[in-house]
């Protein structure tokens, strides 16, 4: 199996689905490399380079550069989805949710329910999230808890190139609006990815490491932080299970609860702000349904309740670290 970057895995998924289904179109800012300039075509492939090369194969009728106009591009994608296309819209940074939320929250997410089950909205909104590039408070947030809160949306957060490809193909084929979140720091991550198309189902967590002492649940970049911590803990004789839910809506509660049944200890690692977060939700699920199995109070390691700071030293302190995860697991072991 070839080693492929997370970025290339996403590109492969889009190319395969666009070949398979002529109704799949890409809509976003600079997704065809910008339009109307005096230089090269396909210079960009979106700011993260994910769609590079697609305009050459599929043309500008299917790889559509828009002005910087998020309400219109997201709303247009939603309207196109409910009338027969299968759009993949690119919201450059998830922070820009602030200028298009109505089209997601009140429109796309609600069509099916509000119209009595008649609407289908096969819409994918791909978006970049996460801290780690000194991009400041308006280009570094997670925000997936906001989407997860909204009925009608599916929320996908891959952590590996393999999952990125399989989950994106599933997202394009899905009949509901899907928010597909790509962590900024994962685009260059390499991993084994099959050349052929495959899907990874929503609502099925993956167990990245197995150990009997504690369970860590983490998403996206934090799965890698958790795995590093798990390796360090193993050297100290503490064996942890690391679970990546991969989708937060639907959420695979069963895999988490089964693991808690074995370990009796839960740590949720979340790069997001802590209040009303995915970490809170997972903690609540385990408190409600797995309380009898718990040997220690549930712990969360999250970003603080602050905006993402700019200065590198502050940003590093903001992001949950391997050391913090390790310390939290050791604390879990002590309190039980």
């Amino acid at each position, binding site marked *: 199996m070839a080693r492929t970057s997370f970025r290339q895995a996403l590109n492969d998924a889009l190319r395969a689905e666009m070949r398979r289904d002529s109704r799949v179109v890409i809509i976003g800012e600079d997704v065809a490399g910008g339009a109307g300039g005096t230089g090269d075509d396909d210079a960009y492939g979106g700011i993260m380079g994910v769609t590079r090369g697609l305009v050459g194969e599929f043309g500008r009728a299917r790889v559509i550069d828009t002005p910087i106009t998020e309400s219109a591009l997201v709303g*247009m994608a939603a309207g196109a989805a409910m009338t027969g296309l299968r759009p993949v819209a690119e919201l450059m940074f998830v922070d820009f949710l602030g200028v298009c939320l109505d089209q997601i929250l009140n429109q796309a997410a609600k069509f099916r329910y509000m119209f*009595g089950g008649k609407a289908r909205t096969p819409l994918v909104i791909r978006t970049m999230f996460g801290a780690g590039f000194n991009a400041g408070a308006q280009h570094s947030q997670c925000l997936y808890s906001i989407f997860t809160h909204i009925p009608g949306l599916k929320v996908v957060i891959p952590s590996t190139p393999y999952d990125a490809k399989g989950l994106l193909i599933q997202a394009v084929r899905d009949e509901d609006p899907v928010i597909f979140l790509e962590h900024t720091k994962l685009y260059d991550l390499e991993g084994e990815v099959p050349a052929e198309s495959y899907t990874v189902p929503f609502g099925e967590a993956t167990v990245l490491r197995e150990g009997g002492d504690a369970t860590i649940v983490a998403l996206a970049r934090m799965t890698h932080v958790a795995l590093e911590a798990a390796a360090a803990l193993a050297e100290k004789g503490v064996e942890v299970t690391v679970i990546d839910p991969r989708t937060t809506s639907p959420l695979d509660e069963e895999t988490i609860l089964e693991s808690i049944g074995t370990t009796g200890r839960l740590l949720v690692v979340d790069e997001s702000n802590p209040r009303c977060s995915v970490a809170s939700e997972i903690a609540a699920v385990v408190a409600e349904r797995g309380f009898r199995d718990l040997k220690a109070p549930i712990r969360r390691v999250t970003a603080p309740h602050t905006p993402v700071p700019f200065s590198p030293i502050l940003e590093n302190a903001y992001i949950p670290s391997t050391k913090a995860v390790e310390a939290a697991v050791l604390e879990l072991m002590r309190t039980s």
Partner: protein
Amino acid sequence: MDSSGNRGPMESMSDIGSEWVRRMTLDRDALLHAYTTMRRIREFEERVNAEFVAGHVPGFVHLYSGEEAIAVGICIHLDSGDYIGSTHRGHGHSLAKGCDSKRMMLEIFGKAEGLCAGKGGSMHIADLERGMLGANAIVGGSPPLVIGAALTAKTLKSDRVAVAFTGDGGSNQGTIFEAMNMAVVLQLPAIFVIENNGYGEGTAVEYAVGAEDLARRAAGFGMPAVKVDGRDFFAVYDAAENAVTRARAGGGPSFIEARCTRIHGHYCGDPQSYRSKEELTQARELHDPITAFRERVLASGELKAGELESIDRQAAAEMEAAVTAAHAGAAPSLEALYTDVYATY
């Protein structure tokens, strides 16, 4: 033009208008259809009003009475494959686009057999099979969605057009500015219709719109824009014919501002004390589009009084049946609370 030959703003405006020429006379069938649909809308709304006042309608409703010539003058150029996006004041658009009055009334009453299974209500009536993409309870919510439908038409080369209805209140939302710009940039088969009834809720358009003129503001986005008397079915008809023809031929988007008069309040039960008594009296007595239509076709001899009276009776009977069905309709089952959040789980 001034003495130097430059065009001032007013000249530009009349230039925009000169494109809008009358092309044809309506035949008898079209006139009968127009009158029937306007009467059906009025009858529907007045029945909803009465039922609301009697306490039979849950939630709240916004009535279209007085604006019928716009929905009908536009939608008469569309068929079920074309798309419209509507507003919170959407009953008229729905009927003009071919939605079933009985199933609409059932929906407004929250019944299981309603167009949206009782889960939408007055502000969310939709009928996708007829290209009715939904009333929209978010002011300015529809235009981005409508350009999406126009993108579908353009991408699939289906020859369809998409119409975004917005009010003067919605005309100030950024969503419509963004949608108009995008429609021009991508040359989409879209038509933006502003129903300017003079009030966004209780705030007058003269206060709320900074520009001198809505059509002139839209023209600034780079598309043909025209202002018509929205109480004159024939004026709306002509403007819509130009815009729909242009869009179908791949000529891109257009904008129509139709000035009209809201006979009822913003919502059912609105005391409207922000409007003078004289204005309210005039709304009913002088600015009724159905009265104007009736007088015109009778004076020209194109239709006979007896025909119109027969249509009036049929519309009354149809809406009586719709109300009866809505009262008798079954409530949704409690299981319906949980269904259709997703297409697949």
